[in-house]
């Protein structure tokens, strides 16, 4: 019987997936701000969408060292890079060169990311440089004065939270994909399964006023043990559970409990059945945890018509990237996993004919210090991220790739760089692509107008077509 336990996971396996304890946490806020939103969110819901679109957030917890992912490879640029990064620099000759369409800079990617380079050069992927959490456009003077800074800079939990809420000047918020779903979920057919789906536990990113994520994992969604399953007493448990759910209760709380439980059970079966179809033959994923997670997401996308959805978001999280030690070795081991799995996911979307309808983007707590601590790198601020999909304005590097010279105007110490693009802008670009009207952006990203004029004809960053 033991081997039949569907949710058998060992603690070691879990700990292996998470970089640190803070990562497993969900936040569930209920701020005044968002309460105010509740009334307006549904009223602003966009009209019927006739095409399918989905966002996939690949969160790299722990703060991945993204200045070793996107690296200047020209002579002068590399010299600056090498001078600052010293013993954590990647050899110039091993960098995989990019040919960006919008930049004269010579840039390369980490040698472990050949598939990502191929996608980039095929214009199916783009980079966004030096993104991070900001309360407002921020100078070094602001930093030294402590004026208008995100709470808990350089702390994992705070910066994870702020990448997910995009409200770094408040401890009370909901996730921006949650608020996105508050607006967009009405365009989906009524379903017990949430518009926001996580394959990596409850993430604050996906919690909205009216939305909680549906959480599944690669070895199956959570059902009720003994209810229509393998359990030896299932034939007894199932009718008993059904009869209790069907019974009438005079107490309102008891009735509410029963209704919510019924809905939970329905969601499980609806989800299980919608994802039972599998993927087209020939689609393969790497045999590792990230590959399995992305395969699960591909399965859900393949079942989108059964679920009756037009809009979905997905949350996937992999690795622990907090390498104060051995940053070079660990990145060399882990970045290929990311590159191969992301490429497999893109190819699966091609096989489903969905490559233009699904966009994957990365996020992480923060960038890491440019300078070495002798063994690794420490917590910093802005970092580089990539976006993959047919809807991406690919083959380009967006934002401002910063100077890597020490003590430059963005450097607040040890090569910790003030972001030149806010998470708000990054999220806004993706939200607009999902069909949110520009005028509704502040409902999702309350601080957006500090970075981007809503009357501007240009896109917030430009990386989406």
């Amino acid at each position, binding site marked *: 019987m033991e081997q039949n*336990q569907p*949710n*058998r*996971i*060992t*603690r070691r396996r*879990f700990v292996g997936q998470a970089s*640190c*304890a*803070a990562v*497993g*946490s*969900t*936040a*569930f*806020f*209920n701020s005044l701000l968002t309460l105010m939103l509740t009334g307006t969110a549904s009223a602003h819901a966009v009209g019927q969408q006739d095409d399918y679109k989905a966002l996939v957030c690949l969160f790299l917890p722990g703060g991945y060292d993204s200045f070793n992912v996107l690296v200047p490879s020209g002579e002068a640029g590399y010299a600056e890079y090498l001078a600052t990064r010293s013993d954590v620099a990647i050899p110039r000759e091993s960098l995989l060169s990019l040919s960006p369409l919008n930049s004269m800079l010579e840039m390369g990617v980490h040698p472990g990311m050949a598939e990502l380079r191929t996608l980039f050069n095929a214009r199916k992927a783009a980079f966004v440089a030096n993104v991070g959490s900001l309360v407002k456009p921020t100078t070094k003077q*602001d930093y*030294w*004065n*402590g*004026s208008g800074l995100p709470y*808990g800079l350089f*702390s994992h*939990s*705070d910066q994870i939270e702020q990448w997910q809420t995009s409200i770094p000047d408040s*401890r*009370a918020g909901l996730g921006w994909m949650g608020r996105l779903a508050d607006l967009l979920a009405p365009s989906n057919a009524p379903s*017990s*399964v949430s518009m926001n789906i996580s394959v990596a*536990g*409850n993430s604050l990113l996906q919690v909205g006023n009216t939305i*909680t*994520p549906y959480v599944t994992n690669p070895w199956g969604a*959570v*059902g*009720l*043990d003994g209810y229509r399953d393998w359990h030896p007493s299932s034939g*007894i448990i199932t009718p*008993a559970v059904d009869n*209790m759910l069907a*019974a*009438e*209760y*005079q*107490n*309102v*709380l*008891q*009735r*509410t*409990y*029963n209704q*919510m*439980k019924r*809905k*939970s*059970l329905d*969601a*499980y079966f609806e989800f299980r059945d919608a994802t039972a179809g599998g993927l087209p033959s020939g689609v393969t994923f790497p045999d590792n945890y990230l590959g399995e997670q992305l395969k699960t997401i591909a399965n859900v996308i393949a079942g989108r018509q059964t679920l009756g959805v037009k809009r979905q978001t997905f949350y996937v999280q992999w690795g622990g990237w907090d390498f104060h030690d051995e940053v070079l070795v660990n990145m060399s081991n882990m970045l290929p996993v990311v590159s191969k799995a992301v490429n497999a996911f893109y190819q699966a979307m091609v096989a489903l004919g969905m490559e233009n309808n699904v966009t994957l983007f990365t996020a992480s707590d923060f960038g890491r210090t440019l300078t070495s601590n002798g063994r690794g790198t420490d917590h910093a601020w802005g970092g580089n991220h990539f976006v993959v999909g047919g809807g991406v304005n690919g083959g380009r590097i967006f934002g401002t790739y910063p100077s890597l010279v020490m003590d430059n105007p963005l450097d607040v110490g040890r090569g910790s760089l003030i972001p030149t693009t806010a998470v708000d802008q990054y999220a806004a670009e993706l939200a607009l692509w999902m069909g949110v009207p520009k005028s509704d952006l502040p409902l999702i990203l309350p601080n957006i107008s500090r970075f981007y004029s809503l009357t501007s004809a240009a896109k917030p960053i430009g990386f989406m077509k």
Partner: protein
Amino acid sequence: MRVQKRFGCWLLCATTLLGSSALAQGGSASAASQDLPDELRTDLSALLQAGDPVTITATAQDREVHERWGRPGTFVVRRTGGTGPVRVNYFLGGTSQRGVDYTTRSGNFIDMPSGVNEVFVQVFPREDRFIERPETIGFQIAPGTGYTVGSPASTTIRLNDWTERPTEEEAARFLIQAAYGADRETLNEVTRLGFQGWLKQQFSAPIGRTQPYITARIAAGLDTWHDQTKISIWQQVMKKRAGSSGPPPDALRQRVGYSLSQIFVVSQNMDALLVNSEGVANYYDGLMEHGLGNFRNLLEWVTMHPCMGMYLSHVGNRKANPQYNIFPDENFAREVMQLFTIGLWELNQDGTRKLVNGQPVPTYNNDHIRAFARCFTGFAFGGPNNNQFYWPQWEFRHPMKLYDIEHDLAPKTLLGGVTTPARAASDPDTGAAARADVKAALDNLFMHPNVGPFIGKQLIQRMVTSNPSPAYVSRVAAAFNNNGLGVRGDMQAVVRAILLDPEARRFEASQSSTFGKKREPYMVLWNLAKTFDAKAQSGKWDAISWMYDAILQEPLQSPSVFNFYSPSFRPFGEMTEQGLVGPEFQIMTAVTTLEALNMSLRGPDWGISRWIVEPPDRIVMALTDEQALAHDPDALVRSLASRMVGAPLNPRTFEIIRKAIAAMPAEGDGWRRARTTLAVYLTASSPEFNILR
């Protein structure tokens, strides 16, 4: 007894309502049969001719009922054979008198509708002033048309006199509210001492502190990550009396402290506190100590504690220096008002909002926030190794220290126009000026009339019911305002008022359609563990770690200062329409709902844990007493309902669970354990268990 006298009049009024109101609550089938349309009634005899021979029997779901705890007893009229409607005649007899000793539905027959196999006749004991000795209520199936009387044809329920001591079910219910569930040991204490007596015992029980375990780990060179505070709290919650002469475990204090940790929130999901379990445990122990002390001391403890200083960023808070664009941090100033003392709106003593021209009145504005933020300047880490404001060592086990050098000394205007004077910095810097301002600020908040209803209502919500009546809130607030000896903020008086209030204690009050609260998901684990004497062979509680992601709740692990849920959260649907709140529903998602239930099915065999943990660390529910009842499904359900739910099951639920148990084999390896496991699981998945009433 005192309660009894005090509310005697109220009781009498309520008792007269019993016959009609409570009967309608007696389960869907009996209600449905009474409401049969007339046309169906007249057709009954014709329909009875059709179908298989019908045999009718009588059983009782309950063995006894009590005048003191006026919950009904339920007779079950059961049929075998046939599916059509049938009218069953019965007699009520025994030594008691119908309408005098108990009330019940009118008439001497009950209609069993088509397709229904059992209907229920409920009897409601009436409280009288007489000492009568136990009486019996006899129930007998009488002959009638269309059925034969089978065996058993009759049964009885015992009707007990009013007693001073609570019944077992009543005591279990009390312990689910006031402690961590009905373990045998504490259950016996409560039935022996009574509610008042037990509270008195608990007020003087020694504090079960959580810090020593963490300190010992540090001494042993072990880690003190965030899961260690959970383990330490479990040790305290699960501890038993050490020998018959040992002091009683401080279950009430533990529960009050835990409830307060959901108001005065600090969370180890913040990195700075994640590995500092010793300091967080120290904070938690203070909540337990002052939770049954005075609220003013509690507020001071919270304000001065470095864990709060770190969490709401007033440690290192400096006076304004506009030249460098430095202003006092307003984080703590805002939350101490919004969440810890007075809330956003001026309240009446009963917790309702004061209205001026139909509009609620804010308790404070931005000027107040700024004034309080200025009072809360000059905080730095304390302890024996820190003696200056700048560059202190992190220290979470000792209160913060105050320094005048970074304290705003200018006058401030607090709530209600109270002002603080201009102060002179002490020299040498003893922080005296800062201390005077902090005292003034906390006194100002403590004296605000909102505190009683604001804090009192939230504690009611944590322990008893989500939607207390204004009168209940008002009685608790009155106890806060004055403990009877002229003392404000006496938390023992507040806790006593919450737990002994008739709205918390009387059966009739619990039967309101809006009474109750959803059991907290984490409390489900504790309740199951406590009720069924769970433990690991190794004695360790490590297996309970890492629960947060599965059920979105774990002590000291809130996602934000706004706790796991908001006290004003309204679930969608009927509760929103009726204006009812249900805080705990906020973390009831498609996933957590089922995860929490699955743990109750796995608990007996696989242990209480997020993932399978191998022995000897597997925390296994014992189920010893219950297994002895496995051959008798009625007795098993009765026993589980009494201790797990602390209130009667809907007769329909009772039958569903009874039938499921009866369908399980009564032979072969481990059949007793299998039956009992299933019974625990189904009871734990019932709405009666999940909604405390």
